[in-house]
C-alpha cells in the first residue's frame, strides 16, 4: 500500500485529493440546495423534507461520515499546499502583474476556504440535529429563531457570497485536475463554474430571507 501513499503525496496526488473531495462537496451543495428548495413549498413542506432526511437513518450517518472525512482531507491538504506554495517563492516580486489568468476567486481560494470552514462550524452549531435539540422545536422554528438575529443573518448572507467565489474557481479547477480538459466540454465547464457559483450564492442566500418572510 505504500504506492498509494506515495501517489497521494506527490503534487498531482495532493491535487487529486483536493479535486475529488471538492467534487463531493459540489454534489453535496447541489443536493442540499435542492432539498432546501422545499421551503418554497411552505414551512410544513420544509419540515417534512427534514423529517424524511432524518428517516434515512444509517444512510444519513454514512453520508455524514463521508462528508466529515472529505472535509478533513480537503482542509488538511489545503493547509499543506498553502505552505508549500508559499515556500516555493521565498523572494517576492517587487512588481507582480497578472497576465490575465488568475481571477479574484483563484487568488483567494485559501482565504475563502478558511471562511467557508468557519461558516460550516457556525452552521452546524446553529442547525445540526447533533447539536441543536430538534424534539421541542421543528427545523423551521429553529431557522426562524436563528435568522431573526441580525448577526446570524449577516453571517449567512455574506458566507454564501464567499462560498460562491470558492465554487467559481473550484468547479472548473476540479475538472482540470482530474484531467477532464476537453476541447468540446471545457468551455461549458468553465461557464458552468460561474453559473453554479451564482446559483449557490443566490439559492442558499435567498433561504434566510424567504424563511424570515414566512415566519
Amino acid at each position: 500500500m505504500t504506492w498509494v501513499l506515495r501517489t497521494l503525496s506527490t503534487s498531482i496526488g495532493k491535487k487529486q485529493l483536493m479535486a475529488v473531495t471538492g467534487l463531493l462537496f459540489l454534489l453535496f451543495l447541489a443536493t442540499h440546495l435542492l432539498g432546501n428548495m422545499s421551503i418554497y413549498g411552505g414551512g410544513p413542506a420544509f419540515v417534512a423534507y427534514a423529517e424524511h432526511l432524518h428517516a434515512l437513518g444509517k444512510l444519513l450517518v454514512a453520508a455524514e461520515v463521508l462528508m466529515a472525512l472529505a472535509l478533513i482531507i480537503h482542509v488538511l491538504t489545503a493547509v499543506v499546499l498553502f505552505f508549500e506554495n508559499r515556500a516555493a517563492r521565498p523572494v517576492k516580486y517587487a512588481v507582480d502583474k497578472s497576465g490575465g489568468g488568475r481571477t479574484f476567486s483563484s487568488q483567494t481560494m485559501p482565504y475563502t476556504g478558511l471562511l467557508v470552514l468557519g461558516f460550516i462550524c457556525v452552521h452546524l452549531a446553529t442547525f445540526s440535529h447533533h447539536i441543536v435539540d430538534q424534539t421541542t422545536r421543528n427545523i423551521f422554528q429553529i431557522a426562524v429563531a436563528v435568522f431573526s438575529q441580525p448577526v446570524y443573518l449577516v453571517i449567512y448572507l455574506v458566507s454564501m457570497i464567499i462560498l460562491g467565489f470558492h465554487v467559481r474557481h473550484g468547479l472548473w479547477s476540479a475538472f482540470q485536475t482530474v484531467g477532464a480538459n476537453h476541447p468540446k466540454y471545457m468551455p461549458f465547464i468553465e461557464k458552468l463554474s460561474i453559473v453554479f457559483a451564482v446559483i449557490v450564492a443566490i439559492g442558499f442566500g435567498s433561504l434566510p430571507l424567504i424563511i424570515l418572510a414566512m415566519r
Partner: protein
Amino acid sequence: MSSKSINLTLKVWRQQGPKAPGRLETYKAENISTDASFLEMLDIVNERLTLEGKEPIAFDHDCREGICGMCGSVVNGRPHGPQKETTLCQLHMRHFQDGDTVYIEPFRARALPVVKDLVVDRSALDQIIAAGGFISVNTGQAPEANSLPVPKDKADLAMDAAACIGCGACIAACPNAAAMLFTSAKISQLALLPHGRPEAAKRALAMLAQMDAAGFGNCTNHKECEMECPKGISISNIARLNREFLKAALASAEEIPAATKKE
C-alpha cells in the same frame, strides 16, 4: 516608419551571487532607440556602465531570435515583458513610452536560484527532462517511416507542446512557482505520439517525482503560465499530464522512482 529615442528609468535587481543579498538599483537608460530590442537596450546600458567603471548587469541571452529559451526576466511584473507570446529578446522598445519606469527582476522561484543579477539557474528543468523526457531508440537503420502511422491532429498537438523552449516563464508567472506547464509540455510532446507510448508510464512518474523534488510549488489552476508562455503552450497539457500521471500511478505496474538530488 521613423525611429525615435526614449529615456527610461530602470529599477534592476542586482545580486552579486547566489548567497548574496540583492536589491533594486536605479539606472538611467537614455537615448534608447525604439527600434532596439529589450536586450539591446540592456546592452547599451551595460556599455555605459562599463565605461563608467561599474559592473554591467548580468542577464541571460543566446540566440536573440526567440527560439533558444535562454533570455527572460520579469519586466514590470510580467515574465518576458508585456507583449503576448514574445520572448524578452523579441520585445522591442517601441512598446515603452518616453519617461517610463521599468522594473526588471529575475524569474523568482526557490527551484530557480539567482546566479547573478537577472541570471537564474535553470538546471532543475534539465533534470526533469533527464528523468524521462526522451524516448529510447536503438541506433542502426532507420525504420520505415510509415510503419507507425501518426494522425495529423495528434502530430499537431505534439508539435504545439514541443514548441516549449524551456525558458521557465511559466514558473516565473505562476503565483505558486509551479513547473507544471513546462513538465506537461515535455510529457505531452511524447505521450501524444506512438513512439512515446512504450515508456509513457515510467516517464510520467519519473518526471513528476523529479519536478516535486526540485522544490517547485503546486499547480492551483491560475492559468498565469498559459498567459505568459512565449510559445502559447495550453494548460490542456497540464490536464494531460494529470491523466498520464494517474494512469501510470494507478493502472501500470511502474513505481514512482526516487528523484535524483540536485547538486
